[in-house]
């Protein structure tokens, strides 16, 4: 595989991993959400992400000329080979934490996917085109939850604030381009993540203010997901996610 193709493959797999890992985390709410209607709504979002991951993995498989199938890439790699952002893999926490994560990620994703629709790579652009519609709805939901919980009861406010505080150190990583991305940005395939930061901050801060929440004053920041350096939670998540394909290789539904 030549260098340019390898970079594209790395980029596509990172996109797939982001969606897969967040989708897996969200699916943990299935049957555990606060009430039935929210359970259905949350798992719908989880399925959107798993579907997004499937499209990116299938494209990755195609770029590899079918050397590995989409399922192989998702279910037979070890943790160090995953390239998702760390914020996606954190345990679901309480409901406020999960909604805070969705909101912070949704604000990013909506703008990112909207720009990625213009990618010079037709397949990437097509997947982004589908994703942007989903993300618009995801943000509508998570935005409302941030307002509801932030400007809700004393307890819901405290929990939402705590969720934001715990997530804030993982935000920087959203805006860091990998080497592969830097090369792909020049070709018009990828989007420069760094350029989205101001707009993201403005949108998030406006909502926090409306929700009577404070912008976290967190000083620390952590990255590493794109290099395969994950949190201690990641292996446990993968063990559950990959169990079936590991125990029964090649099993199909």
């Amino acid at each position, binding site marked *: 595989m030549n260098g340019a193709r390898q970079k594209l493959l790395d980029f596509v797999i990172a996109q797939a991993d982001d969606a897969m890992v967040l989708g897996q985390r969200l699916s943990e709410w299935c049957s555990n959400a606060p*009430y*039935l*209607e929210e359970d*259905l709504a949350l798992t*719908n979002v989880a399925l959107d992400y798993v579907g997004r991951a499937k499209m990116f993995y299938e494209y990755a498989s195609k770029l590899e000329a079918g050397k590995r199938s989409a399922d192989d890439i998702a279910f037979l790699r070890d943790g160090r080979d995953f390239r998702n952002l760390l914020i996606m893999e954190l345990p679901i926490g309480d409901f406020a934490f999960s909604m805070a994560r969705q909101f912070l990620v949704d604000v990013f994703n909506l703008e990112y996917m909207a720009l990625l629709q213009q990618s010079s790579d037709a397949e990437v652009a097509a997947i982004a085109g589908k994703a942007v519609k989903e993300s618009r709805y995801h943000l509508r939901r998570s935005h*409302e939850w941030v307002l*509801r919980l932030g400007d809700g009861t004393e307890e819901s406010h405290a929990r939402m604030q705590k969720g934001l505080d715990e997530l804030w150190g993982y935000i920087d990583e959203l805006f860091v381009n990998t080497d592969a991305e830097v090369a792909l940005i020049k070709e018009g395939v990828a989007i420069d993540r760094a350029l989205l930061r101001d707009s993201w901050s403005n949108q998030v801060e406006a909502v926090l203010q409306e929700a009577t929440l404070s912008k976290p004053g967190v000083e620390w920041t952590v990255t590493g997901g794109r290099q395969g350096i994950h949190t201690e939670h990641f292996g446990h998540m993968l063990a559950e996610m990959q169990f079936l394909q590991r125990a029964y290789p090649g099993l199909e539904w």
Partner: protein
Amino acid sequence: MTTTSDFPLFEIFIRSNRGLDHKHVGSLHAKDYEQALEYARDCYTRRSEGVSIWVVKSSDIVASQEEDAVSFYDPMDDKPYRHASYYKLPEAVNNM
């Protein structure tokens, strides 16, 4: 969920792609109209069942009661002339 007064019941009506009217499909609990609309989308349009949603607070619906049946509907039983089939068409308009 805390109490039902915190989460009132909403009745959901969906208009299908080719349908002209909204049909009742079920009900759900939500905090307010906005959330009811979103949950209706997630609970009742997952399989492309519709292109338009109405949500109505169940408490805003006034329904006829079982005990009204006698006074509401029975008087119609002996008024067959309210049905078109009661009338015999004259030969001249037989093909109407």
